[in-house]
């Protein structure tokens, strides 16, 4: 029998993933990651509270599959949390979920799943995998409002070969219905999108506790260098932010950028916001091959952003220049730019 490990979270999506795969005739094993939390906050880490673990265990018992918890605390802290802190130290707005998917879920956990003798690993992500010949493609979820392909642009052919995404073909309400029909105890849990290790807290408080040294006050300046105020540390500001700058000005000022070397926040008027271009580096191409020609694509610059039409121009195998048809607001260093053609995810990289 083909064996598949499902990365469970105690949530409805991964629980239904187990049920669906079982129905399709797979031998299913549940695994759950124990991720890092600040000391004393283990009970509110979104991904792996004792409650979530108990729920996953109940689902596993209900569906009669083996269930194992895998400790990834050290690994998570060394990779994801370090990346998060370093990103802010560089004046960027990092997206730790990307690193978690690349290093923890689809590397650390996948290796453990394969060691258990699994042929595949599945998650409850809303995304679809389609094969053409021996090539694997990643497609957006049927339920566009739940599509999570953005964070999975980091996968390569080798990992996709092992990946299954059984919920990507369904709309979220259908998934809840399936959960109910199986009597799964997770059927009524709510979605959440906060970073798991912030444990419901604001990221600024987290930085204050874990990297207070990076919250050095500095100057707020205009593009021409005119000093207009004082900031409370770069990490407290995001591109496009208007409120809370503490600067008095006849017209509203927005955060245009951050200069980590000079420790300054750069502000300007609304019409100065937006960029026509961006450079993305560390680009991963799902196909494994960088395109040689420029191509038209829809580009998504944040998990929650709407895709925007653009021309994507590869400058080398791992770097592209993206030229939008219309200037985009809030192009933020550290977030990913992900390229789609229709439903197909072609690849993506980090915004410089």
């Amino acid at each position, binding site marked *: 029998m083909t064996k598949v490990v499902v990365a469970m979270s105690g949530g409805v999506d991964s629980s239904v993933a187990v049920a669906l795969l079982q129905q399709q005739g797979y031998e299913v094993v549940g695994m759950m990651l124990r991720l890092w939390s600040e000391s004393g906050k283990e009970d509110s880490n979104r991904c792996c509270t004792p409650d979530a673990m108990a729920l996953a265990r109940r689902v596993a018992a209900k569906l009669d599959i083996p269930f194992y918890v895998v*400790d990834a605390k050290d690994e998570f802290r060394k990779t994801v949390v370090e990346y998060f802190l370093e990103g802010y130290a560089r004046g960027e707005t990092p997206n730790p979920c990307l690193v978690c998917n690349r290093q923890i879920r689809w590397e650390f956990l996948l290796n453990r799943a394969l060691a258990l003798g699994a042929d595949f690993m599945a998650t409850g992500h809303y995304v679809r995998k389609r094969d053409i010949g021996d090539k694997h493609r990643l497609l957006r979820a049927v339920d566009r409002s739940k599509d999570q392909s953005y964070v999975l642009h980091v996968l390569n052919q080798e990992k996709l070969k092992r990946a299954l995404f059984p919920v990507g073909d369904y709309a979220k309400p259908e998934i809840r219905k399936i959960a109910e029909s199986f009597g799964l105890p997770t059927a009524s849990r709510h979605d959440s999108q906060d970073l798991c290790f912030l444990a419901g807290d604001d990221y600024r408080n987290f930085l204050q506790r874990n990297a207070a040294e990076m919250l050095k006050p500095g100057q707020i300046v205009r593009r021409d260098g005119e000093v207009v105020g004082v900031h409370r540390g770069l990490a407290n500001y995001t591109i496009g932010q208007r409120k809370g700058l503490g600067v008095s000005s006849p017209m509203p000022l927005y955060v245009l950028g951050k200069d980590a070397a000079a420790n300054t926040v750069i502000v300007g008027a609304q019409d100065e916001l937006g960029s026509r271009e961006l450079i993305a580096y560390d680009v991963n191409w799902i196909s494994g091959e960088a395109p040689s020609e420029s191509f038209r694509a829809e580009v998504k610059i944040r998990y929650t952003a709407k895709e925007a039409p653009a021309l994507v121009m590869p400058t080398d195998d791992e770097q592209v220049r993206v030229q939008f048809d219309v200037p985009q607001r809030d192009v933020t260093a550290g977030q990913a730019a992900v390229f789609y053609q229709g439903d197909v995810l072609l690849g993506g990289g980090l915004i410089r």
Partner: protein
Amino acid sequence: MDYNRTTMNPIYLDYAATTPVDPRVLDAMMPYFSDSFGNPSSIHRYGQRAEAAIESAREAVAAALSCGADEIIFTSCGSESDNLALRGAALAMREQTGANRILTSKAEHHAVSKTAEQLERYFGFEVKWLDVDEHGMVESQTVEQSIDERTALVSVMYANNEIGTVNPVREISEICHRHGILFHCDAVQAAAYLPIDAGWLDVDLLSLGGHKFYGPKGVGALYVRKGTRLIPSQTGGGQETSLRAGTQNVPYIVGFAEALRLAVKERQQRVTHVQPLRDRIIGSVLETIPQSRLTGHLKSRLPNHASFAFKNVDGNLLLTLLDAAGFACSSGSACKTGNPEPSEVMEAIGLSREWGLGSLRVTLGVHTTTEQIESFLWALPSIVEKARELLK
């Protein structure tokens, strides 16, 4: 490697965690659920029948321990017996003599160590933690040197659950009694295989748990030497000579007694069955697996108990891989929440973290076969290797 075993029942090598109920024990229990279901405290004949059942169970347990029936208290489990012994004896001794120190070892089961910690934190007792040697053994001179006039109670386990080491219980009780101090012994892990004659052991309090010797879970007993005062933890009706209130769990008490009777009666053949298998495991593991060591004592150990530490192995991961390959074992760092820390016992025997996290406990029982052990020994080296690879 044969991973298809998961579709069958995995091979059970965790008899120290619990054992299956012996069918003969189950037969003895069955009449007391729905037929002779009375409350032993009732006046009528239903009650009388239930009372007769627990009193004959008490006599059977007394016979197994060579003690008086009035020296046996039934409880809900081994942990409750430990709790009642420690808390009850410590409070009673302090009332009688003012002594407020408890001596116990650094390798005790949590049922003892957590109770001692609570007595220290909330009840004003002082706990002195006795060192163990590198095999986890409490040496009698350590007890001798630590006892003083303020000592109320000494509690040392008969055999260690994690590493199988058997303590010199008779030497320790001799020292305690020379100083007029009470001695409690947690025999939960030992009772299945070692002599439990209360007079020979010369203990004042001895804890037992039914499910370690093919009895049901949820029932235990405490031997309380005649004349030993205890303050009850659970108050209420006058059951168990007012030392443990609550309607007795009649079928489970009957099952406990039958299981213990069989354990004593069949002890020799059970030891003869498991000991060569244990020795085969110890010899083979140390020979075939690099950077492995035996934990616990080589000679003074439970006959069904083999335990190891592997350098640079995550014990939880090892258990997961073993389970997936069809072998149910245990570890000193076992934790279902994936939060591995070396156990106190691994620290007490001086293992560094890189060794202490990688512990493995293999415990055998009446259903263990040579074929099972050979198949386990064949699979283990590559599974340990795989666990090491994943930690890199």
